């Protein structure tokens, strides 16, 4: 009995594809019924969808009559209208500029999510990135034609609203979170009132407020353009939610860290800046990514105040009298765009969460 008994392979009936099917799909009467129902559901929806989207679809029609004749989807509509939907009213020949701006914004977001860049270089990168986007979109310098922001639209505008929104809301939200935890009653009350007020109302009411009330708040003669109003509303809205997320992160830091910093004689701002916030912000990245995804989706609401983001330019494309009645194709196209962005971000955030968690395990 000195050596180990040889390790035998498991019996055939418990591993391998047949066992998997039996275990996962048919392990009990209830399971079998569920599997049959699920298969029926798939058969009822997937083949008709494939039929509509691919097989019966028309990809190349030149006019809408030709396209309507197809039994399935009319993707030619997308081919015809995709520039309008993606870029809004931006001048046709200059559309490489918003495209490049969109790429820069996506790069900024991706870089911020990579732990490798979580250091002092992040802030200058953001500043340079946003200036570059501004230069590209407005033009007027470096030989680029000037384009008013009422002509911006589509996907780049959605990205700008979301990214700039979060970028400016972040420091604001950070201060709100610190204020909420402050021991000074006046500051704490002000911050709580702001956060609870904003979180209790829908974004739509903030957008209405911005678009209708801001002009009244300003002295006579001052105007503030519509895009800026929407951006301000989004910033104010996001700041309240960021404040709550950061507050959760601050609460997660063990009291010992605060006490250690105090015992070293650090001032409040030194303590926060060197010890507490760097740790808290790491903890807070996954919920921040969720928040960014939510803000990205919520930018679609600016359609209600008439700004030409991706949603609105799609709606406008649908009003062309020559190409009517293809809403489903348009919505499927736009949904795919949103889905690709949001799903990749959320998948990445989950992977990031796992990676950061292992760093904390002892």
């Amino acid at each position: 009995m000195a050596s180990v008994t040889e390790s035998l392979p498991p019996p055939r009936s418990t591993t391998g594809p047949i066992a998997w099917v039996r275990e996962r799909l048919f392990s009990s009467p209830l399971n079998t019924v569920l599997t049959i129902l699920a298969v029926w559901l798939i058969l009822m929806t997937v083949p008709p969808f494939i039929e509509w989207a691919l097989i019966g679809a028309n990809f190349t029609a030149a006019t809408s009559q030709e396209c309507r004749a197809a039994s399935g989807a009319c993707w030619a509509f997308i081919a015809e209208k995709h520039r309008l939907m993606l870029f809004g009213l931006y001048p046709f020949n200059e559309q490489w500029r918003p495209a490049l701006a969109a790429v820069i914004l996506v790069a900024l977001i991706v870089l911020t999510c990579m732990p490798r860049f979580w250091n002092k270089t992040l802030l200058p990168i953001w500043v340079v990135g946003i200036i570059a986007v501004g230069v590209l979109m407005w033009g007027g310098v470096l030989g680029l034609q000037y384009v008013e922001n009422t002509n911006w639209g589509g996907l780049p505008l959605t990205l700008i609203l979301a990214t700039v929104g979060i970028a400016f809301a972040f420091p604001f939200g950070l201060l709100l979170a610190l204020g909420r935890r402050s021991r000074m009653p006046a500051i704490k009350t002000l911050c709580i009132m702001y956060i609870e007020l904003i979180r209790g109302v829908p974004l739509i009411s903030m957008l209405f407020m911005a678009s209708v009330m801001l002009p009244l708040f300003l002295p006579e003669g001052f105007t503030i353009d519509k895009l800026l109003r929407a951006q301000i509303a989004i910033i104010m809205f996001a700041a309240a939610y960021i404040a709550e997320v950061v507050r959760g992160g601050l609460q997660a830091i063990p009291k010992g860290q605060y006490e250690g910093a105090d015992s070293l004689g650090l001032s409040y701002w030194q303590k926060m800046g060197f010890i507490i916030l760097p740790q808290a912000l790491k903890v807070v990245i996954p919920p921040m990514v969720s928040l960014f995804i939510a803000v990205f989706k919520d930018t679609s609401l600016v359609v209600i105040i008439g700004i030409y983001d991706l949603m609105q330019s799609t709606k406008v494309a649908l009003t062309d009298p020559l190409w009517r009645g293809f809403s489903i194709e348009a919505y499927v196209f736009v949904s795919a765009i949103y889905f690709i962005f949001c799903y990749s971000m959320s998948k990445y955030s989950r992977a990031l969460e796992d990676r950061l968690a292992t760093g904390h395990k002892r």
Partner: protein
Amino acid sequence: MANNRAGRAPARRLNWNDPDVRSVVYQVVALALVGLIGWFLVSNTLHNLSVRNIASGFGFLERESGFAIGESPITFGPENTYGRAVLVGVLNTLRVAVVGIVLATIIGTIIGIARLSKNWLVNKLATVYVEVVRNVPLLLQLFFWYAIITETLPGPRQALNPIPGVFISNRGVKIPTPTDHFAFDLAGIGFLLGIVLAVLVSRWAKKRQDATGQSFPVYRAGIALILGLPILGWLIGGAPLELNVPKLQGFNHVGGATLTPEFAALLAGLVIYTAGFIAEVVRSGIQAVSHGQTEAAAALGLRRNQILRLVVLPQALRIIIPPMTSQYLNLTKNSSLAVAIGYPDIVSIANTTLNQTGQAIEGILIIMAVYLTISISISIFMNWYNKHIALVER
């Protein structure tokens, strides 16, 4: 300085290094700043309003509205006041929110449990549902549902008729309603009686179990009472089959009850969207109950349904209720998107009102007041519930 402890505290000089002094100064500065900004905004606003000849105050609520509302649970016509219009808006919002919450909870819970299923197909289908719904904006989903209802459904003359009496067309869903026959009243009484009796039976069964150890099939009895008594009432009333059945007259159906396309699209969009989030809440709640609890209960000899009912669900519910309530709040706030597809909720009606009267500030204040009231009530309930139900620890 320490020697002074026994007597009065030494007099304090106003010293910048004293944290209390600094705290007071910061707060005064902050309040002064907020006050200044507030005064600046308010004075500009008053000036701008007077320049445009707009009165302020809520007096406009008593003026005649002059517009009609697409659907309303109470009567409303153009001769009614703005105040009544606002009331209709609130009622419409509550109507879609309450029905939405109930349906979303049911569907979300089922999908959440499906995500935990060992059946690979069911698990994956639920996952696809949740991922698609959570990654596409709600507004887009609402437009999608609205487009399906208004563009792909046939007109009333060729309405779909899946069940006798139910007509589905691009003008909405029409369903038959019970007539005033007293048999239906008896059925209603039977339903209420069934609920009361079910509660009494469960109390009696618990007493009996405490005394003798014997268990009683409380759930089966309860369902029998709640379903059986209404049917009994209806039978006693003579078992009439008359209903208000919608009939095609001219271009539309008359009779029965209608679910407008706007309501149907808003409800479908809100329910399907929120159910995706509720599914995740339910799933993580159940997963959070450690596996050791199930094992210990199984080791005691408890059956699967007993383990679920006595050990897993009570713990899971404690974890689930707070985020679930937050999802209910989100659904209510998201109902404000109704303005995009033409359902007359409070935002839509307030918007029309402020456009017609120019009373922008009052209009926005009304909207915010309505939602804040709902949010704060739910928050208060949540805090009470959390304190009441928290697991007692050292």
